[in-house]
């Protein structure tokens, strides 16, 4: 273990990061892509896209996401998680595809990072609470240790006159504190590689004429560079640092079909804000207690485990790159079985909740020439995430939002930003809704896509109208709140698991999922009522008895997929790819 790797070093100046730029930095031989998102967050990432190794520093900073120049993969601000793979527009990328990141702290006009930090970043004591001015960085072709040795010989004066006697204090971790007649500066050495460094000076409580100071020190430090380099030229050039690249997850070596983890509440969040988002709908802003929240993809939902022991699924309204929180909207159901009632009344700001990582079972294609989003009531929540994504990428779309009245429109600030893309339909009768839908869906064309989320009857009506007006099934995507079908679990049958080499008996009264979990087979699940699609499995043989509302009619007819939480088997035996 090289202990130098544990120190924090400045790797960029704040003014290296203008709007929408990606800066290429380096620390101990490791290349860095440094970029500031529109929300001000500074990202320091390993400078290679995990797909094919292309430098991310030549990528595009789109404000919320960084886009790789080679294949257009998008990576979210803060998490570096991949949110979109254009080559497979219908799939949500595996949540765990994530570029390697380094810690980043911005302070005193510099961005600080560390390869393997031992502890949290602490501002050097002499800078704490002081006015500072970061100088122009001076690259030096010399080993970091040599540069540091010479840094201690830098002489300056407070007023730009001839250099005065300077007292020198060397500090652990690659910098020196220099004082000359009352003026103080810190001189840091950023190790680029074994034979290259950057001198980064920070003046403490500088006098007012910054330009004069910058010029004075620029010429002083440039002269110092010449001295260091002539000294370095006498020594043999050290070999460049060999950088090893960490391997990607074994799961990712082959393109994974779907994450295989059980129903977990692996995250802890605090309710940072709770507010009335519209008549009857409560908004919740959830923030992580300590760790970075996993990457959000548009259309994703989370399980929220409530204080009363229940768990419910809620779609995230987050726009692209909003990774410092999750926002959900909860409608108070008059016939609440305890879920929405508990969220509205029992859960308070400051409470801690257990939630699952987001699941992207309702993915958004971004290769459509026109996208139509249809939301009914609280069905607006996943549509807000989708609409913000399409808007950020300048893709053509319309959001049709059906609600009882103006007062029932949730999340007004987000809606207001959508401008002309938003079309609201207020207080319509079922017949009037049908007319509005027929108009909205009048013109289907190649590469148009429709996304629907809302109450069951409205969703059914929209699907039917779309079908009648020529929308092919593969262009119509939907998400039900819940499965209102009565589940018939009276059958009994055998399930053979091809990959696990197990045959299990599913008795009446139990679901396939129950039996799998009882037998220790890890199967992801979430809503457990056939609505969310998390427990989807591939059918190799046999005829499923579909009882879910997740699969489309043709997917059901193909008998190649099954939702194990509610669907059963018509044949005596079902072979699953588990």
């Amino acid at each position, binding site marked *: 273990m090289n202990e130098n790797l544990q120190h924090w070093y400045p790797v960029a100046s704040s003014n290296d990061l203008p709007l929408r730029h990606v800066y290429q930095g380096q620390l101990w031989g490791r290349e860095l892509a440094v970029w500031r998102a529109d929300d001000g967050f500074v990202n320091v990432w390993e400078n290679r896209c995990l*797909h094919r190794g292309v*430098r991310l520093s030549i990528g595009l900073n789109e404000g919320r996401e960084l886009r790789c120049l080679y294949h257009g993969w998008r990576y979210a601000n803060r998490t570096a998680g991949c949110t979109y793979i254009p*080559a*497979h*527009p219908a799939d949500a990328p595996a949540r765990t595809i994530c570029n390697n990141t380094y810690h980043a702290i911005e302070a005193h006009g510099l961005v600080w990072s560390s390869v393997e930090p031992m502890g949290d970043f602490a501002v050097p004591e002499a800078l704490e609470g002081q006015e500072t001015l970061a100088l122009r960085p001076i690259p030096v072709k010399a080993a970091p240790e040599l540069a540091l040795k010479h840094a201690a010989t830098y002489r300056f004066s407070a007023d730009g006159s001839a250099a005065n006697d300077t007292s020198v204090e060397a500090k652990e971790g690659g910098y020196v504190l220099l004082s000359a007649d009352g003026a103080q500066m810190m001189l840091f050495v950023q190790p680029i590689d074994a034979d290259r460094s950057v001198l980064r000076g920070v003046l403490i409580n500088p006098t007012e004429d910054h330009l004069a100071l910058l010029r004075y020190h620029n010429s002083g430090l440039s002269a110092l560079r010449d001295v260091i380099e002539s000294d370095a030229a006498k020594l043999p050039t050290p070999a460049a640092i060999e950088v090893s*690249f960490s391997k990607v997850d074994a799961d990712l*070596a082959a393109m994974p079909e779907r994450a295989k983890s059980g129903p977990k509440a692996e995250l802890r969040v605090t309710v940072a804000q709770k507010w009335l988002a519209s008549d009857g709908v409560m908004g919740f802003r959830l923030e992580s207690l300590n760790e970075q929240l996993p990457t959000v993809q548009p259309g994703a939902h989370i399980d929220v485990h409530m204080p009363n022991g229940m768990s419910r699924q809620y779609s995230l309204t987050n726009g692209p790159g909003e990774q410092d929180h999750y926002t959900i909207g909860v409608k108070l159901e008059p016939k609440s079985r305890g879920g929405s009632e508990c969220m509205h009344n029992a859960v308070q700001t400051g409470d801690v909740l257990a939630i699952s990582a987001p699941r992207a079972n309702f993915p958004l294609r971004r*290769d459509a020439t026109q996208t139509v989003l249809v939301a009914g009531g609280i069905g607006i929540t996943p549509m807000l995430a989708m609409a913000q994504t399409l808007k950020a990428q300048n893709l053509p779309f319309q959001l049709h939002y059906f609600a009882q009245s103006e007062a029932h429109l949730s999340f007004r600030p987000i809606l207001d930003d959508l401008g002309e893309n938003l079309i609201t339909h207020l207080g319509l009768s079922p017949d009037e809704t049908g007319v509005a839908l027929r108009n909205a869906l009048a013109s289907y064309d190649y590469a148009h896509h429709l996304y629907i989320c809302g109450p069951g009857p409205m969703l059914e009506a929209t699907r039917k109208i779309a079908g009648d007006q020529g929308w092919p099934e593969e262009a119509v995507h939907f998400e039900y709140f819940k499965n209102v079908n009565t589940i018939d679990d009276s059958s009994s049958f055998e399930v053979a698991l091809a990959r696990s080499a197990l045959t299990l008996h599913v008795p009446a009264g139990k679901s396939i999922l129950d039996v799998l979990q009882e037998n220790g087979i890890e199967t992801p699940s979430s809503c457990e009522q056939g609505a969310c699609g998390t427990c989807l499995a591939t059918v190799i043989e046999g005829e499923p008895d579909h009882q879910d509302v997740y699969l489309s009619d043709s997917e059901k007819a193909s008998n190649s997929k099954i939702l194990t939480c509610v669907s059963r088997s018509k044949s005596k035996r079902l072979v699953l790819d588990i």
Partner: protein
Amino acid sequence: MLDLNCKDSVILNQWHPLSSLEEINKGVVHKTRLLDASISYGIDDEGTLSTWLSNDHLKAGQPYNAAAITDPLPVKHAHGYLWTCLGEPPETLFSFSEFYESDRRNVPTGVFGVHVSAGRAVENFLDMGHFPFVHTGILGEEPHTEVKEYDVEVSETRDEVVATQCQFYQPQAALASKEGAMVDYIYRVPHVNCALLYKSSPTDESRNDVIYLFLQPMGQEQIRAHTGMCVVDDMNSHEDIRYFQQTIFGQDKPILENQYPKRLPLDPRAETPIRADKTAIAFRRWLSRKGLTYGVIPVEA
């Protein structure tokens, strides 16, 4: 055995392209690099070709005299190129029958020096997913970004990687086409450093245009890419065809030179493939099975 820096017999025992035959000035000594070694070559008026490890007696630019070469290397002229070998030469070179069809136009479209490994450049040639982002408006265009399912196999008999049923939307599929269409492709990798692409000819749908990439590994991270087209096209001039292909390669070059690491990692866990990368996955496995170490990062034992 020659005394060479390169010790990898897998790469030494291959034919390597040095130059298009059309583009060699006769009667003069030429010099280039291959596998970290300096190589000289020349052709005289009778068409006698030689290659040899460079020496001080016959410097580049001096008159070429075939009789003065004391230690010639093996040579082959095939598919319009001069090939040589620094190890045991294989008996045959891969087939490229279209090149010899009488009504074809064979157009060498340029040689490009690229600071990258040969494997990275071959992979780029096999890749469709980058068309909308790197060759925007020419070979692809957003939002038509989907790479549809296709087939890949490693042909045991011919020892080559073949990808078929490939399809991609192109706004201008070739110089002679005016509007967007789904275009069919077949890719062949019949040699560790050479790849060919077949796509339906815009002027005659029953036939394929062929684009080839023959790489000369100068070092592990430095190549010369010999490119060319073998087309059924009586509309465009040589110059137009060259210009088209040079535009395409000019767009790929900065991407290739920004791949990091420069050598092709063969460990399946080094990078993150997706279904669209099936050909690349098969190519990496094929190289791994051959035991190639030059210009790649082999899988750790």
